[in-house]
């Protein structure tokens, strides 16, 4: 049974692309497009991993991440940050907020796959 | 230029030297008056005056003035250099 990956991304095309890649690789992917209620969705779905876009309508990804890390239930949740702002600062920000991984857009599909696998302890 | 303010009460030596200088200024005036006095004497009815009498008078005054000046000058000599401001 594939692991459950929750994808929170507001761009539909990107969301679709990632879902396709991960699903093809055997993951179960669910998507969400809002930042506002992202926390609730995470708590509700309790995924094995989370792919979080930095820029979300309603709430930005870093804040969401920090909140997740604050909660004991999701403190250890593997989280991959996605961002279209490609500056080095963003990587530091992501790490400071508690991201387990960081990916800049545009990304190579293979890299996304590899990262998710790594996050979930698979090779 | 204003002269420096003079104190009202000064030491006796300064007072004395100032009075000495006043005397030095006064004596010539006195002398002038005395010498001009004969002008005031009413002449004799015929307009002539006694040469002898006037002569003795003049020379007597003359001698007196000399003596007075001698005394004053000696005192002033001792008194001066640099003792107090002049009141010139």
């Amino acid at each position: 049974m594939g692991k459950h990956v929750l994808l929170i991304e507001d761009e539909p095309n990107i969301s679709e692309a990632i879902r396709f890649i991960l699903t093809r690789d055997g993951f179960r992917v669910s998507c969400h497009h809002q930042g506002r209620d992202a926390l609730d969705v995470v708590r509700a779905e309790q995924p094995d991993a989370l792919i979080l876009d930095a820029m979300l309508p309603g709430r930005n990804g870093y804040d969401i991440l920090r909140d997740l890390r604050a909660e004991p239930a999701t403190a250890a949740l593997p989280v991959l940050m996605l961002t279209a702002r490609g500056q080095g600062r963003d990587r530091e920000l992501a790490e400071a907020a508690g991201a387990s991984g960081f990916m800049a857009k545009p990304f190579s599909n293979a890299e996304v796959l590899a990262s998710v696998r790594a996050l979930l302890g698979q090779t | 230029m204003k002269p420096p303010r003079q104190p009202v009460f000064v030491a006796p030596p300064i007072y004395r030297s100032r009075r000495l200088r006043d005397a030095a200024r006064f004596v010539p005036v006195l002398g002038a008056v005395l010498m001009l006095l004969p002008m005031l004497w009413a002449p004799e009815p015929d307009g002539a005056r006694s040469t002898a009498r006037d002569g003795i008078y003049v020379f007597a005054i003359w001698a007196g003035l000399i003596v007075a000046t001698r005394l004053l000058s000696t005192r002033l000599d001792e008194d001066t250099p640099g003792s107090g401001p002049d009141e010139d």
Partner: protein
Amino acid sequence: MPFNLLVLACLAYVAFLFTVAFVADRRAEAGTLPWLSSPLVYTLSLSVYCTAWTFYGAVGYAARSGLEFVTIYLGPTLVFIGWWVVLRKLVRIAKTQRVTSIADLISSRYGKSSLLGVVVTLICVTAATPYIALQLQSVALSFSVFASDTPDGWHLPDRDTTALWVAGGLALFTILFGTRNLDANEQHHGVVTAIAVEAVVKLVALVAVGVFVVWIVADGPADIVTRIDASRLAGWELVPGRWAGLIFLSAAAILTLPRMFQVLVVENADERHLSTASWAFPLYLAAMSLFVVPIAVVGLEVLPDGSNPDLFVLTLPLALDQGGLAMLAFLGGFSSATSMVIVAAIALATMVSNHVVMPLILAFGERKGTEPGDLRRVVLLARRLSIAGVMALGYGYYTLTGGSGALAATGLIAFVGVAQILPAMLGALFWRGATRTGAMLGLGTGFGLWLYTLYLPSFGQGAVIAAHVFEGGLFGLGWLRPEALFGISGMDPLLHALFWSLAVNTLLFVGGSLLTFPSPMERLQGARFVQAFDQSGPAPGWSRGQAEPEDLLVMAQRILGEDVALAFFQANARAQGKDGYLPDITPAFMNDLERRLSGSIGAAAAHAMIAQIAGGASVSVEDLMAVANETAQIMEYSARLEAQQDELTRTARQLREANDKLTQLSVQKDAFLSQISHELRTPMTSIRAFSEIMMDEDVPPELCARYAGIIHDEAIRLTRLLDDLLDLSVLESGTVQLTLRTASLRDMLDRALQAAGSTRPERDFALHRDGQAEQVTVSSDIDRLTQVFINIISNARKYCDAEAPALRIVVRRKGDQVQVDFIDNGSGIPKPSQALIFEKFARLTDSAKAGGAGLGLAICREIMQNLGGSIAYLPGQGGAAFRVVFPATLVLPIGGPA
């Protein structure tokens, strides 16, 4: 008494005097003459006041007018008794200012005026001439007494030649001992000593005759009194006017006679000698006067009627067979005459060379030769020539007047002449308000009046002034009669002249001084003179020295001589702490140098010479103004500095503000860039992702088509974004090229609706238009304007969330302005966002719905600005409403868009 013996004795006496003078000079140079520093010598030298007039003429005066002769000596007595008041100040000032003569005093005080120096010199020479003639006459007379057996006999040719010999001899003596060198203090020690000797001889002689008369001829003082009462002289007439006037006149004379100034002031070695002289000199005068009446009385008794009483001093001993006494008397008379002439000649020569010759030399300023000592020689030569000249004048006067009139009268004429200097002198000493103009006026008129009323008439009626002038006045004006000015006749001529000349003199002096304003130099000198006893004097005079010390040294050497000048300079240099011979040109040094030089050539000449070299006069109003100017400049400069400082602070603040703004902008730019980056990367991500997916083989074909479509759409989106960005950039930078065309608004709207129709084509909008109002001809950049319309309509199609969407387009015309409103029936845009929507990348809803980058409205705003119009959100319309305003006819400014 054999004549030859007399001549021999005379020559021996003269030789003795020469020796004394020579030795005294030598010892003075060596500095070993303690006798000179004795007040006794000083007092004795003052006896030059008692000339042959005293020696001979007093007796004659007494014989004629009784006691009146005493007035001549009472005046000086009073002046000396009151030494503390006038004499002391006079001597002090002369010492500090290095005054060389009375002309120098006046000239120096009144602004170092050369002209005044000349005038005073002229007065002195004119007045002294008859006086010198008088002395020559006395000597000649006294010789002639011995020459003939009868008391009054003389041989006219002999007399003149005698006088000539005497004049010549005196000139020689004076030149020899009076002009050996230019002493900085103008002190002639040899001469002074000789004069002192002569004073003793005079006194001894007269007293001897007197004693002889009182105790030998008569029987003591009581007998003399009896004889007086019994004689013609028992009664005398005291004319009050003459009594007071003559006392005043003699007092004035003792101060203003050049020879008296010379011995009293210039030759004074120590101020303290004055206090001795204050009583000792009146004593001398009293002694000289004491025996005058007895001699006169006895003479009248003994000698035959008609004898010249002026010569009683000689003729009486002779008549009584006292040859020795007579010779002593002769020597006494000789001494009296010669001492006067010598000192007068020196004084006059100094004045002439300092105030007439030196200015002339300076005026024709070329420096002849550069050897040091040059100028000295000139000055000494001038002195010698002056001495000779003065003698010549005296001799000339003597021959001209032929010895007419009593001796006494001549002397008094001279007295009135020099008395003209008195007002200016007293003003110089005591009145700071005395000015040069006042002095000039006073001196000038006094001199003139004296000449007219006394001097010229003394030559006799018709000699200089025509006889008719005496009768009828000048130009026939009765009130200008020389001896009865302004109709006041019947006055004693002497008193008349004295009164008028001095009155007018003083009046004009005071009036002139009050009405004129003195120059800075005058005021400086005025302060120095009047406040001579103050400890702190005013500041030094030379304020700017542009002189080279070498130039000054050369000049000083020419005047003082090489050694003296070098020594002086060296001393000054050492005082300044410098080695060598050249001190720094400080104001103090210049002042010192000027004082030193003025001791030799007079204050005015010294001042002028230094001014010539230094290039600038001592403190002048110009100088003061320059200093004030400098101060003003400094103040202005520091004010400017302050202003600059203020400006700098302001600029710093502005820079800081600009920096803050730049930082802000930079931040904004960073935000913008990252925003752009985000906007660009997002479609790129889709493109890349799906491309990669499609590159894998196991993608079902329908997904492939779909994915290809997504790629396509995203590519287009990207392109559009890039276009928009470029557009915006161009619009913002103001370098956009506008294409002017003309079109109908209606056509534009049609096109816009059609183009925008591709946005959300599935939605069906109800359109409300006003065809009539849309009939507007627009002349502008039609394409861009249409682009704006397209943007707005697309937005409406995207964001209008009404169930039955409708779009209303309202057109209004206001003058040249066209107003187009686009109103939909959706929920509108909430108030907080109404301004935000025009910002770049502002998107109200999630990008999914928008599909654009959020630049649309920003572009619209820029376009409208470029077209001279505006776009704004129109609130309160129910739905979202945008108002576009633009001029129907766009007028482009030359050189670019609005």
